[in-house]
């Protein structure tokens, strides 16, 4: 059975944010996600792209157990999700590092929530920080880091407790294009070397194509899966890859589907 076990399994996922109030001031119910079916196999890197407000983050929060969907089932490693799980590592849009802790202790935060911090945990985090290009910054405070470095710390923190599944919600959204590209290459390396399963929410088409083994395109709100594109590249992704016509072709396909999805629902 374990061979066929999916890392993530979403079936008929639907979520409605309840409105409030009555009369003219009422806030209506908003259907964020209409019907999402999706499976992520172990070791995959799946990106979810879609127009702004299509419920991408809602999908991720449902997987993380931070939100109970209105309908549908969410399974992680075959088990129904009822709340946050220990074996999920998550990095959100905002790095949210704790200002009174240094880089090392920020990364160890999830570890110590789940028990005593052992030497091997420190070693693992040191290794992660090194792979993320943060060697020598272990004792720095978040204040002393750049935005890109903070995001990298957040990703190391997500990986610190050795989770089986990594969830990323637009972790590079606030960075400039150049830094972002470098971060993507770094993230690809970390993913390859740790062998994790990853789900990334993004609105960057190039980013999605560069990082993913599969790109899931969602429609405009309420979000449903419009198409799944499989970039035909090896697991190691490089800057050079981005310059190839094949890369541009895949990006173009994703972009076309995204815009079609946009118009299809809006018109």
């Amino acid at each position, binding site marked *: 059975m374990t061979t066929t076990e999916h890392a993530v399994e979403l079936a008929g996922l639907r979520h409605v944010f309840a409105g409030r109030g009555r009369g003219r001031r009422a806030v209506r119910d908003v259907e964020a996600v209409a019907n999402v079916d999706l499976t992520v196999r172990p070791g995959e890197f799946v990106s979810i792209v879609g127009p702004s407000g299509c419920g991408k983050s809602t999908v991720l929060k449902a997987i*993380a157990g*931070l939100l109970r969907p209105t309908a549908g089932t969410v399974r992680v490693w075959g088990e129904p999700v009822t*709340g*946050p*799980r*220990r074996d*999920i590592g*998550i990095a*959100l849009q*905002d790095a*949210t590092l*704790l*200002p*009174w*802790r*240094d880089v*090392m*202790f920020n990364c*160890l*935060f*999830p570890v*110590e*929530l*789940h028990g005593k911090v052992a*030497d091997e945990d*420190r070693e693992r985090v040191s290794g992660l920080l090194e792979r993320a290009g943060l060697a020598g910054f*272990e*004792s720095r405070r978040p204040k002393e880091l750049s935005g890109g470095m903070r995001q990298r710390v957040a990703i190391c923190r997500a990986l610190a*407790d050795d989770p089986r599944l990594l969830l990323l919600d637009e972790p590079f959204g606030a960075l400039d294009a150049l830094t972002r590209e470098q971060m993507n290459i770094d993230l690809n390396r970390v993913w390859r070397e740790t062998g994790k399963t990853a789900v990334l929410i993004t609105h960057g088409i190039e980013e999605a194509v560069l990082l993913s083994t599969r790109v899931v395109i969602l429609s405009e709100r309420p979000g449903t899966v419009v198409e799944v594109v499989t970039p035909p590249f090896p697991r190691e992704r490089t800057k050079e890859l981005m310059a190839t016509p094949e890369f541009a072709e895949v990006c173009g396909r994703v972009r076309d589907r995204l815009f079609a999805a946009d118009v299809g629902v809006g018109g």
Partner: protein
Amino acid sequence: MNRATAERVEPRGPALSRGTWRAGLPARAAFLLLPPVAVGLAGVLLIQLVISRFEISGVVIPKPTDVFAVMRSDIFLEQVGQSTWETWKATLIGFALGAGTGVLLGLLMAESRIVRFVLYPYVVAFQSLPKIALAPVCALWLGFGLTMKFSFAAMLAFFPAVVATLAALAAVPETRLEMAAAFHASRRQRLLRISLPSAVPGIVSGLEISMAFALIGAIVGEFVAPSAGGLGQLLLSYSESINVAAEFSVLVVLMLLGVAQNKILFGVLRAGTERFFESSR
């Protein structure tokens, strides 16, 4: 390993390590003290000159030199030493009681909506009550001694601590709480490792106000209680004998006491929060 232990020595704590009490060399401290001391001396000098020039009576405003002379006299030093300790004792006990329950209640109200909903109106109602109006009842229940004095100090110290704690905990960034939830933190872990450390700067400013208020409370207690002793009674007795220079001397001592206890509070809090941050990680 070496790095980890070396780095544990560093002072920790959000706003606490910033500005207010950064540890510095004595020479640096002296340099920083120079401007305020210079301005103070210039002010005193100006008052002295104005009083001499316009020949203002010592009963209205005593000359700074007269005040200084009183403050150096043995009899004043003896009286003021004993009284200061009496006042400060009441202030400290009152601060510990009032601010302690205040922080605790603020914590409870921040954590439980029901507790907040039920108790907050009463906290505000109690605060709107002029504490001096409670003097007759307090005297009836507690007598005119130390108990009454520290009760007054506690009553005044209570409210700023409640409000500051409540506000500081309500202002903890939502993203930090969500992050903690995503990593499967228990309620206790969230409170100890996220909420409280985030709230420390806010709570500390509340405690600062509480401590100043506690001193006011102790003096008020001494004013209403004829046998209470302390700086309040000393001030009253000088007032009765129209010894204005001595009255001003007591005021100077009160100010110095206020500044000193503020410094001590911060020193203790810094040591305490450092330990707290060590244990909460």
